[in-house]
């Protein structure tokens, strides 16, 4: 590859991919590197709520205003990534009625449209809700798919000549006279290391941004903050459900395709890789959520996992929920005199495009490029659209994934895992959690990609292990039963555990 670019972007989450696209649209030569696959950081371990901003109106009006602005733009430019479910805020008889007035005033001020609906009417449309609803409002929330969004950003940038490399980790910076002039990269598949020279580096490492800046001797105060989420095997409500009270734990339900994502919690952690949910955390969430959905404890959970928020505290400010959800651009030359590096931290997925704009405005100026940001005007598209295949062509019936989608999702890729495929197609994300489609996708790729059989065995086992990891904290009820069925198939029936498979560890 070309070992010189103008700008290197670190991090393949919403922010980094948004930056790559913005750079490319301004004609800046750029490369994105991501240590794993796109959106495997927080942008793939989040709630999937395209905020209307209503959650923040009382405490953080500025964030709320940014959210509603971006909410409208993204619905326009990224329909492939968004399911416009609409949202609702409900207050129950146990909630503080005084908060409702403050909230309504905030929404009005931020320009977020609210529409009241009577509890009786609402219960007809959303029968799973608690009968204790006293007030309810519709807001323009929506569901957003972080995997598709990151991939769509990259696709749009690549069409303009930008480059993106996944499974490539930044392991160091090349510094000269107090200026960053390149990054050292390590390919996770081959272990090969190389240097890419550049004029500027944008650190969009999310919760890892502190670690990354540390590689250049910079000390920035990113506080990883862990949030637990659980997934139910069906749509509990048709709209995004929020609890109308000051933001707290376990008060948002987001419907996504055939499932519901519910959460979350907030706990300071010192490790951005701390993404496991514990049984205790899950049980606490469920207890909280039962206030909105009384039957919650009897519903089937299929997974639990955690994401880590990249909260930024300039100088030892608030932590956890009190911390600002605003984003910050850190110009390291201001901080320590180091030129050529800027970090973007904090924020939300909903406002990723604004973060990207701020970072690229800054870097463009440094590079003497005066093209304005146009990311709000150009559409982006999913690389693997849902396409109507002929009956008989679907290998995953939960999420309707066809053979053609399997082909498209690995186009041009040398290595791939079924998890990479899953992020682009939703293969194995539905109620059966990969029990049937993992086997089918393996058989299909083994033949169509001419894989060595030990490679195919590894493809299969890795995906089953990955799905297993998420279901471990929720191994009860129907999920315990489903797990036994999966074990019956892969161990009892197929005897797969005894088959030889490749063991290159990623």
């Amino acid at each position, binding site marked *: 590859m070309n070992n010189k670019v103008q700008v290197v972007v670190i991090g393949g989450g919403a922010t980094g991919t948004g930056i790559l696209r913005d750079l490319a649209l301004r004609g800046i030569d750029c490369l994105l590197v991501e240590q794993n696959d796109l959106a495997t950081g927080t942008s793939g371990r989040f709630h999937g709520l395209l905020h209307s901003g209503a959650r923040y109106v009382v405490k953080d009006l500025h964030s709320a205003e940014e959210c509603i602005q971006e909410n409208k733009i993204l619905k326009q430019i990224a329909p492939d990534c968004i399911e416009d479910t609409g949202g609702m805020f409900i207050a129950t008889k146990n909630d503080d009625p005084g908060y409702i007035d403050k909230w309504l005033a905030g929404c009005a001020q931020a320009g977020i449209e609210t529409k009241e609906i009577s509890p009786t009417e609402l219960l007809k449309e959303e029968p799973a809700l608690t009968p204790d609803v006293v007030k309810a409002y519709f807001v323009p929330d929506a569901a957003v798919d972080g995997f598709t969004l990151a991939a769509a950003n990259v696709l749009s940038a690549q069409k303009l000549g930008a480059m993106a490399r996944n499974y490539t980790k930044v392991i160091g910076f090349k510094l000269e006279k107090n200026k960053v002039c390149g990054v050292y990269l390590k390919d996770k598949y081959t272990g090969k290391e190389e240097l890419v020279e550049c004029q500027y580096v944008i650190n969009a490492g999310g919760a890892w941004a502190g670690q990354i800046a540390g590689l250049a001797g910079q000390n920035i105060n990113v506080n990883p903050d862990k949030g637990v989420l659980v997934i139910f095997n069906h749509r509990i409500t048709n709209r995004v459900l929020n609890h109308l009270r000051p933001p707290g734990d376990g008060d948002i339900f987001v419907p996504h395709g055939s499932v519901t994502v519910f959460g979350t919690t907030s706990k300071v952690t010192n490790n951005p890789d701390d993404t496991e949910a514990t049984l205790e955390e899950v049980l606490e969430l469920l207890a909280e959520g039962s206030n909105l959905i009384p039957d919650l404890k009897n519903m089937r959970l299929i997974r639990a996992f955690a994401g880590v928020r990249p909260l930024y505290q300039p100088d030892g400010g608030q932590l956890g929920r009190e911390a600002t959800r605003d984003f910050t651009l850190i110009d390291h030359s201001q901080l320590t005199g180091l030129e050529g590096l800027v970090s973007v931290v904090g924020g939300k997925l909903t406002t990723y495009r604004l973060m990207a704009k701020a970072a690229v405005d800054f870097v463009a100026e440094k590079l003497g490029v005066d093209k304005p940001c146009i990311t709000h005007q150009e559409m982006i598209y999913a690389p693997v659209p849902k396409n109507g295949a002929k009956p008989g062509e679907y290998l995953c019936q939960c999420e309707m994934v066809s053979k053609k989608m399997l082909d498209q999702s690995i186009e041009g890729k040398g290595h791939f895992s079924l998890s990479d495929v899953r992020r682009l197609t939703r293969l194995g994300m539905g109620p059966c959690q990969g029990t049937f489609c993992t086997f089918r996708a393996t*058989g299909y790729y083994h033949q169509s990609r001419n894989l060595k059989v030990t490679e195919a065995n590894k493809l299969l086992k890795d995906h089953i292990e990955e799905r297993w990891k998420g279901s471990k904290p929720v*191994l009860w009820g129907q999920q*315990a*039963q489903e797990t*036994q069925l999966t074990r019956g198939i892969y161990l009892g029936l197929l005897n797969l*555990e005894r088959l*030889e498979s490749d063991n290159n560890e990623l």
Partner: protein
Amino acid sequence: MNYDVVVIGAGLAGFSAALAAVKEGKQVLVIAKGMGNLYSSSGYIDLLGYYPTTSKKPVVNPQKILDSLIVENPNHPYAKVGKDIIIKAFNDFLLVSEEMGLPYTGSLNANMMMPTAAGALVPTTLYPKSTDKKITVDREIVVVGIKELVDFYPAYVAQNLELQLGRKVKPLWIDLQLNISRELNSYDLALALEKPQVRNGLIDQLINLNVRDSLILIPAVLGVTRWQEVISNIEQSLNCELLEIPTLPPSVMGYRLAESFKLYLKNKGVEFIIGYPVAYAKFLDGYCEEISIYTANDRLKKIKAQNFCLATGGILGEGLQVLPREIKEDVFGLPIQVPREYSLHDFFSLEGQPLSYAGVNVNDRLQPFDPQTKETLLKNVFVAGATLAGYDPFVEKSGNGVALTSGYKAGLLAAKGGILNE
């Protein structure tokens, strides 16, 4: 309603219990909330495939290994059943399978290695006679996939087999060109292949592919009830041997066994009520007197019996309900020891999963007992199959073996009021 023996559960364990009891001349009722797991399982009866479970090599002679297992694992269901009954249950099943019209074969002294739909070889003990074909034959081996079936990939099977057999295995696809508007599963295809014209299409394609005289491995879709006719028709037309490979659920080979066994029991006078869970049980002085079910329109039906067999299939069969920190036995509320951790790190761990080992603890008469006090909890209840504690059928490859043998003993004990002489 009043019976000598009521069997709760319609899986292999329940059927086996009903068989043993009806042979003793008892009036038997099988009640279950649904069809058991046979419909998803391979139809093979694995006695013991790997011992200890972490062993890389399969068990060659299961009968011999049983001796050590019984000594080393006193809590394993086989230790509770005992070797004599295990042998008797297997031999009786072989005889009965002939009478059912679905003859099985195999020997307790030698496991048979059967190819799986992933191309692994799995040790099994009893298998339908129609699958009595050794993968080690001299004939050419061909694996045939059917385009309409999304659950079978011949090249994948063939290459994994090559790796283990060290010889060439040829993959082929055929397309039955059925005009269908959805993905077919094994059961759909098996029904289709009972039609002569569909079958002839398959035969013609196989002839064109030049696979005469070979051993043909094919997914188990060769007929639901008329499998004999389908298989021999193809074998004769091609002068080949056909070996069906059990598929992902629904499993046609499991279906054949479930349906044949049930019909056989019905003909012997066993009654069935399927579709309703046990609603409650009434106890008196350490005995179960009566159970009841809610039938259509919520009518409560009371069922009395001298003795009961509990064969509710564990977690998968829904006899055990797993809660976050507790496991409940559904029918009698028997105590279940909860493992400290439900699961190990790896899905494919050869140790098995702790959750899978959980179940009802029993004494040598298969009566439930309290693991703390060692007290027998119910004297006229005999427990069998996947509801038993102490084993993980999936790593050990013993699911249907435990179901068959413990079911048989539970049925005998229920017929004889809890005492077996000799």
